[in-house]
């Protein structure tokens, strides 16, 4: 056991820091610090900067153009990015679809789609959930029927909660290709062009006023058979593989660290009883409790991710990271709005760029209450925390639970 970083790791941290220092545009980090929406263009810009550096795909093997970092390197990058208020990369293409293609896709699919993910030519979104199929994902009904010529699937149905679908030109979908068999055995994994006829995207406005998710409707949408990933009716296996990847970064340690720094900054500016709130023992205790949890989580995360990096896809531990990681993040969001006192009340939202300019924000807190509400999603999506607990219990107690 050695808890110190090696010389190589220290050098890597210095390299990351220097890169962020030089290449992260100030107006971008300002926006992230203030909790503002980066927008499509901003996202694409940061994506391109990372790609140029060769750091866009830390978890991809080198042969596909990835950085192939180990767990410690990824952890260091995550920490430094959070501290520098660097944007997060939209994960759908890079860390969800790509691992599936690399493991289950054809050579042609990898040759065609992976470079487009890196270049940013395609913006991917995730079409799993449906109105009737949330936690019970396998009950999904969107169907794909092969045409007589055998050249195209005809897709009909509706996906929902599609994050940033309004920016995307491609969607990876789970579709039903066999209705007669057991639910899990009739699902296929299909790549669909959102600009094709028969695809319609409708906005859903979230409770903090943001347009973050969408409904995606398919009516007789034609999808070439080349866009089937792996084998027909084996999509459930690929979907589950993807979900474990979706959950690996879900502990969000970097987000929590940045969030906690912000809480302390707000609580030093906010006055209570004539002293900074941070000096109030009651508030300080709340902050310390979360900080202790977060310190342990940072190590839990590293331990689990290093183990997974040894080859196997992370299993039940990723469920543990998700549950505890999201509890910590949500607690930090709660502390931030608490710290801001009455100044949490104005409707500061990330929704419209510049819309917060006219708001009073003497604490420089940003939209803390809106973020608190928005991040209630963390324990709902990517497999709700109840579903994760169910997975943990089932695994740890065998058939007994």
């Amino acid at each position, binding site marked *: 056991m050695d808890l110190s970083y090696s010389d190589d790791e220290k050098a890597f941290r210095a390299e990351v820091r220097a890169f962020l220092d030089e290449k992260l545009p100030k107006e971008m980090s300002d926006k992230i610090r203030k909790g503002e929406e980066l927008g499509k263009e901003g996202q694409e810009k940061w994506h391109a900067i990372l790609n140029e550096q060769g750091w866009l795909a830390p978890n991809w093997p080198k042969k596909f153009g990835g950085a192939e970092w180990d767990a410690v390197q990824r952890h260091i990058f995550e920490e430094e990015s959070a501290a520098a208020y660097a944007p997060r990369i939209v994960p759908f293409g890079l860390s969800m679809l790509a691992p599936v293609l690399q493991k289950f896709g054809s050579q042609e699919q990898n040759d065609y789609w992976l470079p487009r993910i890196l270049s940013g030519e395609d913006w991917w979104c995730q079409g799993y959930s449906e109105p009737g199929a949330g*936690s019970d994902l396998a009950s999904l009904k969107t169907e794909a029927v092969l045409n007589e010529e055998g050249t195209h699937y005809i897709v009909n149905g509706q996906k929902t909660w599609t994050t940033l679908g309004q920016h995307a030109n491609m969607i990876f979908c789970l579709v039903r290709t066999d209705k007669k068999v057991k639910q899990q055995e009739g699902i296929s994994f299909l790549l669909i062009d959102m600009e094709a006829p028969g695809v319609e995207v409708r906005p859903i406005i979230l*409770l903090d006023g943001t347009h973050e998710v969408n409904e995606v409707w398919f009516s007789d949408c034609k999808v070439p058979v080349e866009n089937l990933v792996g084998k027909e009716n084996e999509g459930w296996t690929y979907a589950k593989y993807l979900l474990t990847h979706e959950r690996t970064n879900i502990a969000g340690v970097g987000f929590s660290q940045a969030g906690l720094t912000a809480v302390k900054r707000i609580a030093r500016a906010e*006055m209570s009883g004539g002293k900074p709130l941070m000096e109030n023992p009651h508030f300080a205790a709340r902050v310390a409790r979360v900080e202790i949890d977060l310190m342990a989580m940072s190590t839990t995360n590293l331990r689990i991710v290093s183990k997974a990096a040894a080859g196997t896809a992370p299993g039940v531990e990723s469920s543990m990271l998700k549950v505890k990681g999201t509890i910590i993040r949500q607690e930090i969001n709660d502390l931030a*709005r608490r710290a801001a006192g009455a100044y949490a009340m104005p409707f500061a939202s990330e929704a419209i760029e510049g819309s917060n300019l006219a708001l009073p924000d003497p604490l420089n807190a940003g939209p803390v209450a809106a973020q608190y509400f928005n991040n209630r999603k963390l324990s709902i999506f990517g497999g709700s925390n109840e579903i994760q607990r169910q997975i943990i219990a089932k695994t740890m107690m065998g058939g007994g639970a």
Partner: protein
Amino acid sequence: MNFDLTEERQMLQDSLRRFLRDKYGTAERNKILESDTGFSADIWNGLAELGIIGALFTEDQGGFGGAGFDIAVVFEELGRAGVVEPFLDTAVLGGGLIADLGNDDQKAHIEEIIGGTLQLAFAHGEPASRYDINRVSTTAKADGDNIVLNGRKAVVVNAENANMLVVSARESGDVGDEDGISLYLVPADAKGITLQGYALLAGGRAAEVTLDDVSVPASARLGEAGKAFMAIEARIAAANVAICAETLGAMETACRLTRDYLMTRKQFGKPIGTFQALAHRMSDLLIEMEQARSAVIVAAGHLEHDRKARESHVSAAKNLLGRAGRLVAEDSIQMHGGIAMTQEYELAHIAKRIIMSDHRFGDTDHHLERYIALAAA
């Protein structure tokens, strides 16, 4: 002991609930939320006609209620429907302070308030005061027969709609002294007042109010010079009873929606309420609801008691409602899943009302500390 409402209060509750059920559905309310004024004059006038504002004043003051239980009955119903119109600011706070401290000329305004034609805002909190009600740094200086006010007031709810502001200002002493604070009734269009208005996350609007050499006649003072603190504290206690009752009503709606959803939403072929992980949490929410109701009843019942009994019961209620409210809001959203995250679903607004109520006149922690201090005093 008797825990039933009096016949009058029962009628008040019934008619208010009926009115809001008919006129204040999710769609109507969301339209009000998005409007420029953040406020519906129709609703305001309709409720004034129904006697809702009158119920918040005593007979002596020209109303027909005004006790802690009247406030609790009215605000629980307002909370149940997620009402954003500023009854708290105009009636309980502004109107209440005029009723408590005003001279006959000033009290003449109460009739207009009850009739629904006068709007008020209470300009008290400041950027550096957080929840300390004694921290007033806005100054009041005599200038001949006039008083000149200077300072800044933070997050003044309903300031833009208000015809008059009730402004606290210091005539003497240090920033944190209880002594030396006065209240002034200032026309909203007085020279030297600037408003920077904005919408609030949980509905309604507020403004930052800057007072720059605002000159008012000494007769604009409410009550004795420098002696307003006790009245402010008592009125904020009444406001906190109102806020707790409102939160209770909102919590009831959250629980009702969640219970209904658990029984109808199906996943894995059964209603999700059959999963014990959710069923037990729903049970916990219902247990907390009973506790919250008791805390509100006890606080309302002590509003007319001596200072220590009043303040410690009010702080107890605000602390308990803060904790139970957060649990109910967060668990209700969680047990709904994605649907509760959408703006057009009723629970979204209700959850915001519950959580943001913790940001007015002291949060859970503030009132815990206050409760401890009062017990030690």
